[in-house]
Protein backbone atom coordinates (compact mmCIF):
# COMPACT_ATOMS: atom_id res chain seq x y z
CA UNK A 1 0.00 0.00 0.00
CA UNK A 2 1.12 3.54 -0.72
CA UNK A 3 1.99 5.06 2.63
CA UNK A 4 4.19 8.06 2.05
CA UNK A 5 4.73 10.68 -0.59
CA UNK A 6 8.07 9.00 -1.38
CA UNK A 7 6.30 5.70 -2.07
CA UNK A 8 3.95 7.58 -4.30
CA UNK A 9 6.70 9.30 -6.27
CA UNK A 10 8.60 6.05 -6.57
CA UNK A 11 5.56 4.21 -7.96
CA UNK A 12 4.76 7.10 -10.26
CA UNK A 13 8.23 6.78 -11.81
CA UNK A 14 7.80 3.05 -12.30
CA UNK A 15 4.40 3.58 -13.92
CA UNK A 16 5.90 6.14 -16.29
CA UNK A 17 8.58 3.64 -17.33
CA UNK A 18 5.96 0.95 -17.81
CA UNK A 19 3.89 3.27 -20.00
CA UNK A 20 6.94 4.02 -22.12
CA UNK A 21 7.82 0.32 -22.35
CA UNK A 22 4.34 -0.98 -23.12
CA UNK A 23 2.90 2.05 -24.92
CA UNK A 24 -0.41 1.36 -23.30
CA UNK A 25 -1.77 2.76 -20.02
CA UNK A 26 -4.05 -0.18 -19.30
CA UNK A 27 -1.20 -2.71 -19.67
CA UNK A 28 1.14 -0.50 -17.63
CA UNK A 29 -1.42 -0.23 -14.80
CA UNK A 30 -2.00 -4.00 -14.76
CA UNK A 31 1.76 -4.65 -14.64
CA UNK A 32 2.24 -2.13 -11.83
CA UNK A 33 -0.53 -3.79 -9.82
CA UNK A 34 1.08 -7.23 -10.20
CA UNK A 35 4.66 -6.03 -9.63
CA UNK A 36 3.98 -3.77 -6.65
CA UNK A 37 0.96 -5.48 -5.11
CA UNK A 38 -1.00 -2.21 -4.91
CA UNK A 39 -4.77 -1.79 -5.40
CA UNK A 40 -5.72 -1.08 -8.99
CA UNK A 41 -7.50 2.17 -8.03
CA UNK A 42 -4.17 3.46 -6.62
CA UNK A 43 -2.39 2.53 -9.84
CA UNK A 44 -5.09 4.40 -11.75
CA UNK A 45 -4.68 7.45 -9.53
CA UNK A 46 -0.94 7.39 -10.31
CA UNK A 47 -1.91 7.46 -13.98
CA UNK A 48 -4.03 10.57 -13.25
CA UNK A 49 -0.86 12.22 -11.92
CA UNK A 50 0.82 11.53 -15.23
CA UNK A 51 -2.18 13.14 -16.96
CA UNK A 52 -2.96 9.86 -18.69
CA UNK A 53 -6.40 8.58 -17.82
CA UNK A 54 -7.33 4.95 -18.38
CA UNK A 55 -9.66 4.76 -21.40
CA UNK A 56 -12.62 3.87 -19.21
CA UNK A 57 -12.47 7.36 -17.75
CA UNK A 58 -11.84 9.16 -21.05
CA UNK A 59 -15.42 10.46 -21.19
CA UNK A 60 -15.16 11.63 -17.55
CA UNK A 61 -12.06 13.69 -18.22
CA UNK A 62 -13.61 16.83 -19.70
CA UNK A 63 -15.98 17.04 -16.73
CA UNK A 64 -13.83 15.85 -13.81
CA UNK A 65 -10.29 16.55 -15.07
CA UNK A 66 -7.36 14.33 -14.03
CA UNK A 67 -7.31 15.92 -10.56
CA UNK A 68 -11.03 15.28 -10.03
CA UNK A 69 -10.71 11.70 -11.26
CA UNK A 70 -7.85 11.17 -8.82
CA UNK A 71 -9.95 12.52 -5.94
CA UNK A 72 -12.72 10.10 -6.87
CA UNK A 73 -10.35 7.13 -7.00
CA UNK A 74 -9.24 8.00 -3.45
CA UNK A 75 -12.83 8.44 -2.22
CA UNK A 76 -14.64 6.04 0.06
CA UNK A 77 -18.43 6.20 0.16
CA UNK A 78 -21.18 4.24 1.83
CA UNK A 79 -24.43 3.43 0.01
CA UNK A 80 -27.21 2.46 2.42
CA UNK A 81 -29.91 0.52 0.59
CA UNK A 82 -29.31 -1.32 -2.70
CA UNK A 83 -32.85 -1.21 -4.07
CA UNK A 84 -34.48 1.31 -6.42
CA UNK A 85 -32.23 4.28 -5.62
CA UNK A 86 -29.17 2.39 -4.39
CA UNK A 87 -28.86 0.19 -7.49
CA UNK A 88 -28.59 3.18 -9.80
CA UNK A 89 -26.45 5.13 -7.33
CA UNK A 90 -23.85 2.34 -7.10
CA UNK A 91 -23.91 1.84 -10.88
CA UNK A 92 -23.06 5.47 -11.55
CA UNK A 93 -20.52 5.80 -8.73
CA UNK A 94 -18.67 2.78 -10.09
CA UNK A 95 -18.69 4.10 -13.65
CA UNK A 96 -17.41 7.43 -12.28
CA UNK A 97 -14.48 5.55 -10.73
CA UNK A 98 -15.27 6.10 -7.04
CA UNK A 99 -12.46 4.17 -5.33
CA UNK A 100 -14.20 2.34 -2.48
CA UNK A 101 -17.94 1.73 -2.30
CA UNK A 102 -19.55 0.12 0.74
CA UNK A 103 -22.98 -1.36 0.02
CA UNK A 104 -25.44 -2.09 2.83
CA UNK A 105 -28.66 -4.06 2.39
CA UNK A 106 -30.14 -7.01 4.28
CA UNK A 107 -32.60 -8.04 1.57
CA UNK A 108 -32.79 -10.54 -1.26
CA UNK A 109 -34.19 -9.63 -4.69
CA UNK A 110 -37.85 -10.47 -5.13
CA UNK A 111 -40.38 -10.28 -7.93
CA UNK A 112 -41.84 -6.98 -6.73
CA UNK A 113 -38.42 -5.37 -7.39
CA UNK A 114 -38.49 -6.19 -11.11
CA UNK A 115 -40.34 -3.03 -12.20
CA UNK A 116 -37.64 -0.64 -11.06
CA UNK A 117 -34.48 -2.03 -9.47
CA UNK A 118 -31.51 -2.07 -11.82
CA UNK A 119 -30.08 -5.35 -10.51
CA UNK A 120 -33.39 -7.20 -10.25
CA UNK A 121 -33.85 -9.62 -13.13
CA UNK A 122 -35.19 -13.13 -13.63
CA UNK A 123 -31.82 -14.61 -12.63
CA UNK A 124 -31.30 -12.55 -9.49
CA UNK A 125 -34.64 -13.23 -7.78
CA UNK A 126 -33.92 -14.86 -4.42
CA UNK A 127 -30.26 -13.78 -4.34
CA UNK A 128 -28.75 -11.41 -1.79
CA UNK A 129 -28.70 -7.83 -3.10
CA UNK A 130 -25.18 -7.26 -1.77
CA UNK A 131 -23.84 -10.28 -3.68
CA UNK A 132 -25.58 -9.41 -6.96
CA UNK A 133 -24.36 -5.81 -6.79
CA UNK A 134 -20.83 -6.95 -5.91
CA UNK A 135 -20.72 -9.11 -9.05
CA UNK A 136 -22.12 -6.29 -11.17
CA UNK A 137 -19.48 -3.87 -9.88
CA UNK A 138 -16.70 -6.34 -10.73
CA UNK A 139 -18.06 -6.60 -14.28
CA UNK A 140 -18.09 -2.83 -14.78
CA UNK A 141 -14.94 -1.58 -13.08
CA UNK A 142 -12.34 -3.90 -11.53
CA UNK A 143 -10.48 -0.96 -9.97
CA UNK A 144 -13.39 -0.10 -7.68
CA UNK A 145 -13.38 -1.93 -4.35
CA UNK A 146 -16.89 -2.90 -3.28
CA UNK A 147 -17.45 -3.98 0.33
CA UNK A 148 -20.81 -5.64 0.94
CA UNK A 149 -22.59 -5.60 4.28
CA UNK A 150 -25.63 -7.87 4.22
CA UNK A 151 -27.39 -6.34 7.21
CA UNK A 152 -29.84 -3.62 8.16
CA UNK A 153 -28.21 -0.22 8.44
CA UNK A 154 -29.27 -0.13 12.10
CA UNK A 155 -27.09 -3.23 12.68
CA UNK A 156 -24.08 -1.93 10.76
CA UNK A 157 -20.89 -1.98 12.83
CA UNK A 158 -19.22 1.37 13.59
CA UNK A 159 -16.03 0.23 11.86
CA UNK A 160 -17.87 0.31 8.51
CA UNK A 161 -17.98 4.12 8.72
CA UNK A 162 -14.22 4.45 9.16
CA UNK A 163 -12.67 6.65 6.48
CA UNK A 164 -16.02 7.18 4.75
CA UNK A 165 -16.22 10.62 3.15
CA UNK A 166 -19.84 10.55 2.03
CA UNK A 167 -22.98 8.55 2.73
CA UNK A 168 -25.82 7.98 0.26
CA UNK A 169 -29.24 7.51 1.86
CA UNK A 170 -31.08 5.14 -0.49
CA UNK A 171 -33.12 3.59 2.32
CA UNK A 172 -36.85 3.01 2.13
CA UNK A 173 -38.07 3.53 5.70
CA UNK A 174 -38.15 6.67 7.81
CA UNK A 175 -36.69 5.11 11.00
CA UNK A 176 -33.72 3.77 8.99
CA UNK A 177 -33.21 7.14 7.30
CA UNK A 178 -33.22 8.92 10.67
CA UNK A 179 -30.75 6.37 12.03
CA UNK A 180 -28.42 7.06 9.10
CA UNK A 181 -28.71 10.79 9.74
CA UNK A 182 -27.57 10.13 13.34
CA UNK A 183 -24.59 8.11 12.09
CA UNK A 184 -23.64 10.95 9.75
CA UNK A 185 -23.78 13.32 12.70
CA UNK A 186 -21.83 10.99 15.01
CA UNK A 187 -19.01 10.36 12.54
CA UNK A 188 -19.15 13.86 10.95
CA UNK A 189 -19.92 12.53 7.46
CA UNK A 190 -22.20 14.45 5.07
CA UNK A 191 -25.13 12.51 3.68
CA UNK A 192 -26.80 12.72 0.29
CA UNK A 193 -30.44 11.96 0.98
CA UNK A 194 -32.88 10.72 -1.61
CA UNK A 195 -36.47 9.56 -1.37
CA UNK A 196 -39.14 8.58 -3.86
CA UNK A 197 -42.85 7.87 -4.08
CA UNK A 198 -44.97 7.71 -7.24
CA UNK A 199 -44.11 10.55 -9.64
CA UNK A 200 -42.41 12.44 -6.83
CA UNK A 201 -38.99 12.56 -5.27
CA UNK A 202 -36.68 14.61 -3.09
CA UNK A 203 -32.93 15.12 -2.79
CA UNK A 204 -30.90 16.93 -0.14
CA UNK A 205 -27.41 17.11 1.26
CA UNK A 206 -27.65 16.64 5.00
CA UNK A 207 -24.62 18.20 6.68
CA UNK A 208 -23.61 16.58 9.97
CA UNK A 209 -25.88 17.96 12.66
CA UNK A 210 -28.25 19.89 10.38
CA UNK A 211 -31.03 17.33 11.08
CA UNK A 212 -33.03 18.26 7.97
CA UNK A 213 -34.59 14.79 7.88
CA UNK A 214 -35.95 15.20 11.42
CA UNK A 215 -37.64 18.45 10.34
CA UNK A 216 -39.27 16.75 7.37
CA UNK A 217 -40.28 13.43 8.83
CA UNK A 218 -40.92 14.19 12.51
CA UNK A 219 -42.62 11.20 14.09
CA UNK A 220 -43.92 9.78 10.80
CA UNK A 221 -43.34 6.15 9.92
CA UNK A 222 -44.04 6.31 6.16
CA UNK A 223 -44.75 8.67 3.28
CA UNK A 224 -46.77 8.85 0.08
CA UNK A 225 -44.94 5.81 -1.36
CA UNK A 226 -47.20 3.64 0.79
CA UNK A 227 -50.14 4.41 -1.52
CA UNK A 228 -48.35 5.39 -4.73
CA UNK A 229 -45.68 2.70 -4.88
CA UNK A 230 -42.58 3.34 -7.00
CA UNK A 231 -42.66 3.33 -10.82
CA UNK A 232 -39.42 2.67 -12.78
CA UNK A 233 -38.47 6.20 -13.84
CA UNK A 234 -38.52 8.03 -10.49
CA UNK A 235 -35.73 6.02 -8.78
CA UNK A 236 -33.49 6.32 -11.85
CA UNK A 237 -34.07 10.08 -12.00
CA UNK A 238 -33.62 10.79 -8.28
CA UNK A 239 -30.56 8.49 -8.08
CA UNK A 240 -28.97 10.47 -10.91
CA UNK A 241 -29.48 13.73 -9.01
CA UNK A 242 -28.03 12.13 -5.87
CA UNK A 243 -24.89 11.00 -7.68
CA UNK A 244 -24.39 14.40 -9.33
CA UNK A 245 -24.71 15.99 -5.89
CA UNK A 246 -22.33 13.44 -4.35
CA UNK A 247 -19.68 13.79 -7.04
CA UNK A 248 -19.66 17.57 -6.55
CA UNK A 249 -19.11 17.03 -2.82
CA UNK A 250 -16.34 14.47 -3.33
CA UNK A 251 -14.56 16.76 -5.78
CA UNK A 252 -14.86 19.77 -3.45
CA UNK A 253 -17.09 21.67 -5.88
CA UNK A 254 -19.95 22.30 -3.49
CA UNK A 255 -20.48 24.67 -0.58
CA UNK A 256 -22.83 24.10 2.30
CA UNK A 257 -26.50 24.69 1.57
CA UNK A 258 -29.30 23.55 3.87
CA UNK A 259 -32.01 22.93 1.34
CA UNK A 260 -34.06 20.15 -0.09
CA UNK A 261 -35.16 19.76 -3.69
CA UNK A 262 -38.68 18.47 -4.36
CA UNK A 263 -39.39 17.01 -7.79
CA UNK A 264 -42.80 16.39 -9.33
CA UNK A 265 -42.37 14.44 -12.56
CA UNK A 266 -46.14 14.44 -13.22
CA UNK A 267 -46.55 18.22 -13.39
CA UNK A 268 -42.95 19.14 -14.21
CA UNK A 269 -42.39 21.04 -10.96
CA UNK A 270 -39.02 21.50 -9.30
CA UNK A 271 -38.89 23.40 -5.98
CA UNK A 272 -36.11 24.10 -3.49
CA UNK A 273 -36.99 24.44 0.18
CA UNK A 274 -34.47 26.35 2.28
CA UNK A 275 -33.93 25.41 5.92
Amino acid at each position, binding site marked *: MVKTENDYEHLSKILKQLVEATGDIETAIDELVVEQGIPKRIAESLACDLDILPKRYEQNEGTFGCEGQKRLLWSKVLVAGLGGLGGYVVEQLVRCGTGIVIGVDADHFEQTNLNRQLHADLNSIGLRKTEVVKNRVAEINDAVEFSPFACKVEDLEDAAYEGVGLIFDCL*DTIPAKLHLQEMGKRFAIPLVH*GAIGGWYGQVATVWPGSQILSHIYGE*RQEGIERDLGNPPFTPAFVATLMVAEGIKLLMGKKHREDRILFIDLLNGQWEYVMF
Partner: protein
Amino acid sequence: MELEIKLFATLRKFDQQEKIEFTDGTTVLDILESMAIPPSEVAVVLVNGRHAKLEQQLHDGETIALFPPIAGG
Protein backbone atom coordinates in the same frame (compact mmCIF):
# COMPACT_ATOMS: atom_id res chain seq x y z
CA MET B 1 -56.48 38.99 3.86
CA GLU B 2 -55.37 37.29 0.67
CA LEU B 3 -52.87 34.44 0.64
CA GLU B 4 -51.35 32.46 -2.18
CA ILE B 5 -51.39 28.75 -1.43
CA LYS B 6 -49.24 26.41 -3.50
CA LEU B 7 -49.87 22.69 -3.21
CA PHE B 8 -47.22 20.22 -4.23
CA ALA B 9 -47.45 16.65 -5.57
CA THR B 10 -50.23 14.62 -3.89
CA LEU B 11 -51.52 17.71 -2.05
CA ARG B 12 -52.72 19.20 -5.35
CA LYS B 13 -55.92 17.20 -4.95
CA PHE B 14 -56.95 19.62 -2.19
CA ASP B 15 -56.79 22.60 -4.53
CA GLN B 16 -59.92 24.77 -4.35
CA GLN B 17 -61.16 26.87 -7.18
CA GLU B 18 -63.02 29.42 -5.06
CA LYS B 19 -61.07 31.93 -2.97
CA ILE B 20 -61.20 31.57 0.80
CA GLU B 21 -61.04 34.69 2.97
CA PHE B 22 -58.73 34.50 5.95
CA THR B 23 -58.43 36.89 8.86
CA ASP B 24 -55.03 38.34 9.71
CA GLY B 25 -53.16 36.12 12.19
CA THR B 26 -54.61 32.89 10.82
CA THR B 27 -52.14 30.02 11.28
CA VAL B 28 -51.01 27.45 8.74
CA LEU B 29 -52.92 24.86 10.75
CA ASP B 30 -56.16 26.89 10.40
CA ILE B 31 -55.67 26.93 6.65
CA LEU B 32 -55.17 23.18 6.48
CA GLU B 33 -58.40 22.76 8.41
CA SER B 34 -60.40 25.06 6.15
CA MET B 35 -59.07 23.27 3.05
CA ALA B 36 -59.72 19.81 4.57
CA ILE B 37 -56.03 18.85 4.35
CA PRO B 38 -55.05 16.36 7.09
CA PRO B 39 -51.91 17.73 8.82
CA SER B 40 -50.47 14.19 8.67
CA GLU B 41 -50.25 14.57 4.87
CA VAL B 42 -48.08 17.70 5.13
CA ALA B 43 -44.36 17.20 5.78
CA VAL B 44 -42.98 20.62 4.91
CA VAL B 45 -44.51 24.09 5.11
CA LEU B 46 -42.96 27.08 3.41
CA VAL B 47 -43.99 30.64 4.07
CA ASN B 48 -42.52 33.06 1.54
CA GLY B 49 -39.97 30.44 0.56
CA ARG B 50 -38.74 29.73 4.11
CA HIS B 51 -39.35 26.65 6.20
CA ALA B 52 -42.14 27.31 8.74
CA LYS B 53 -44.10 25.56 11.45
CA LEU B 54 -47.81 24.70 11.39
CA GLU B 55 -48.40 27.23 14.18
CA GLN B 56 -46.96 30.15 12.22
CA GLN B 57 -49.33 33.13 11.91
CA LEU B 58 -49.86 34.49 8.43
CA HIS B 59 -50.23 37.97 7.02
CA ASP B 60 -51.76 39.49 3.91
CA GLY B 61 -49.94 38.77 0.67
CA GLU B 62 -47.88 35.85 1.94
CA THR B 63 -47.28 32.70 -0.07
CA ILE B 64 -47.65 29.30 1.54
CA ALA B 65 -46.31 26.13 -0.05
CA LEU B 66 -47.13 22.65 1.23
CA PHE B 67 -45.24 19.42 0.52
CA PRO B 68 -46.12 15.81 1.40
CA PRO B 69 -43.75 13.28 3.05
CA ILE B 70 -41.76 11.16 0.59
CA ALA B 71 -39.74 8.25 2.01
CA GLY B 72 -39.42 5.42 -0.53
CA GLY B 73 -36.10 4.11 -1.79
